[in-house]
């Protein structure tokens, strides 16, 4: 498995280079004048232009610009925004909040999703099963911003249980409702995946063997059925970590959370190229690593899978 991990890590390099170059080229290479609209209605002053051209190496060919940028990124320097703020400072401020939100969302979707799925899958057709199927369908059908706005309105405005706007440095508790909103869709999928997977395994030969061995029902279900049923669920959750770490533009917007999603959103809105490239480069790494972790986790969960 060590060699496999190493090989997978090496494979990340071309993927990382390819994706970041693509983004770099999209935002820098494709525009005729990167400064258009940067200085209000007027043309930018030659001095300002010169300074920015210098800062972003715009006189070099694109590939050289990119390599210089990459070199800086690898030493932790994500460059500066047009207004001169360090992009790494922006990321350092926003990322902990996103990670907190992601953790809250992941815990919510894993715990509630799996419990709902297990209850529905074990009981067979009946009230619990129908309730889970209908409520998950409801969550899947609702766009996230609707769920978010409704909860903000009801819990925040009408009932006053939560604040409608999350403070700058939120605690875990303050992120529960936004986390729930962010998790809602995946939670519904986790519940359904757990349910289906459990039902499939109920009839598995090895479950019948476990019953034939005279094991207590608790153990048949908890050890023999559940472990196998959760393999696809854990894989799904792992993939979802990658997505959650990418920030949540909609949820962060609704609850006014200053995380990485909002950073990308503002970066795009203000055409702040350096911010966008920096954040995307970071997210590509996060996503690739999360994916690798999922694959390795899969091998741990299912011993039949061996990576050589």
């Amino acid at each position: 498995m060590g060699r496999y991990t190493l090989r997978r890590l090496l494979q990340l390099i071309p993927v990382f280079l390819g994706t970041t170059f693509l983004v770099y080229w999209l935002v820098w290479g494709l525009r005729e004048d990167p400064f258009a609209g940067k200085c209000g209605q007027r043309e930018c002053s030659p001095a300002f232009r010169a300074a920015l051209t210098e800062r972003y190496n715009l006189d070099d060919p694109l590939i050289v610009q990119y390599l210089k940028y990459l070199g800086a990124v690898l030493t932790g320097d994500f460059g500066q925004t047009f207004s001169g703020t360090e992009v790494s400072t922006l990321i350092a401020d926003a990322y902990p909040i996103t990670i907190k939100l992601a953790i809250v969302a992941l815990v919510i979707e894993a715990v509630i999703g799996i419990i709902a799925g297990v209850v529905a899958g074990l009981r067979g057709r009946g009230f619990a099963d129908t309730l889970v199927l209908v409520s998950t369908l409801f969550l899947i059908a609702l766009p996230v911003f609707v769920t978010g706005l409704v909860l903000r309105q009801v819990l925040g405005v009408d009932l006053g249980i939560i604040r409608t706007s999350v403070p700058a440095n939120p605690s875990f508790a303050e992120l529960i409702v936004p986390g729930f909103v962010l998790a809602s869709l995946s939670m519904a999928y986790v519940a359904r995946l757990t349910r289906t997977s459990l039902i499939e395994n109920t009839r598995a030969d090895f479950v019948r063997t476990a019953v034939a061995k005279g094991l207590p029902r608790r153990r048949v279900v908890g050890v023999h059925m559940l472990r196998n049923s959760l393999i696809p669920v854990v894989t799904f959750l792992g993939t979802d970590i990658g997505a959650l770490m990418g920030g949540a533009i909609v949820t962060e917007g609704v609850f006014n959370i200053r995380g990485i999603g909002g950073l990308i959103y503002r970066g795009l809105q203000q055409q702040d190229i350096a911010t966008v490239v920096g954040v995307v480069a970071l997210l590509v790494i996060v996503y690739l690593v999360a994916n690798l972790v999922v694959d390795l986790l899969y091998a741990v969960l299912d011993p039949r899978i061996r990576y050589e």
Partner: protein
Amino acid sequence: MAALLEVEDLRVEFGRGPETASVLNGVGYHVDEGETLAVLGESGSGKSVTAQTVMGILDAPPGRIIGGSVRFRGEELLGADPERRRLLRGESMAMIFQDALSALNPVYTVGFQIAEQFRFRRGMSRKDATARAVEMLDQVRIPNAKQRVKEYPHQFSGGMRQRAMIAMSLALDPELLIADEPTTALDVTVQAQIMDLLDELRRERGMGLVLITHDLGVVAEVADRIAVMYAGRIVEHTDAETLYARPGHPYTRGLMDSVPRVDDPGHAAGAPLRPIPGLPPSLAAIPNGCPFHPRCAYAQDVCVDDVPPLRELGDGHQAACHFAERFVAEGTDRPTTHEVVSG
């Protein structure tokens, strides 16, 4: 003294409405201590469903027990307390399955799955239980058991996996073992080894063995008695020798003609194999009268109208055919079914 296992007039259905399949239609057999009963029959005749009902592991729903009796040492099991039945499983009666690869849990080691029974049925510590699991693997002659106990089912070869399955079934020292086609999934060379092992373990432990099989050769060697099943009924029941020499039911004779038999000179010398003509009946619409009559070369009017009951022909030989005495008298040296028809 009560027999170890007595099954009587067992009736099981699957599904509902007009599609209801009558899978068992009055199955009965018994096994004594230390005895081997072979159960023969085409695919779908209900061999496994009978075994599952005895073990109490029938998929219900869709399965439904609608009548009959299963007694273990005289104790009625159908309708008994589920906890009581669970405690009998493993301890008093155990089962091994055809496909050990799917019957073993892929995500736990073989040792874990054997040790589990010692831990949760005998209250042993994990360590003691694992030591016992190694002993069990030793007993079924898996080389290097100490090492292999830590491996996963997919790391075992087919034969070794079936040995592990046997070890698992014997862990709690059951008095009755039901082996559902234990060798069907294996290479021919391995089949004999597994059969020998099973027979030896049965003898050592004085277990009763219900051996479900398609292999007539195996049956002749190890079975004390044979029950032949057709469409959810026992159609013939006798010892191996009688079954081969003087079968009382045309279906039994058909089964023997449809497989190669090395041990029989008459068939060995390239005599053609004759599969039984036609297909087993749909269990949702079993024919009137003798269920075998659409496929039987000897069928008469009476066969269409009257169900032949399983009758005693003397010396414990039973057959469910209106003309059983005639077939017994003829024996197998007589022309076979098809020659009679065409001649």
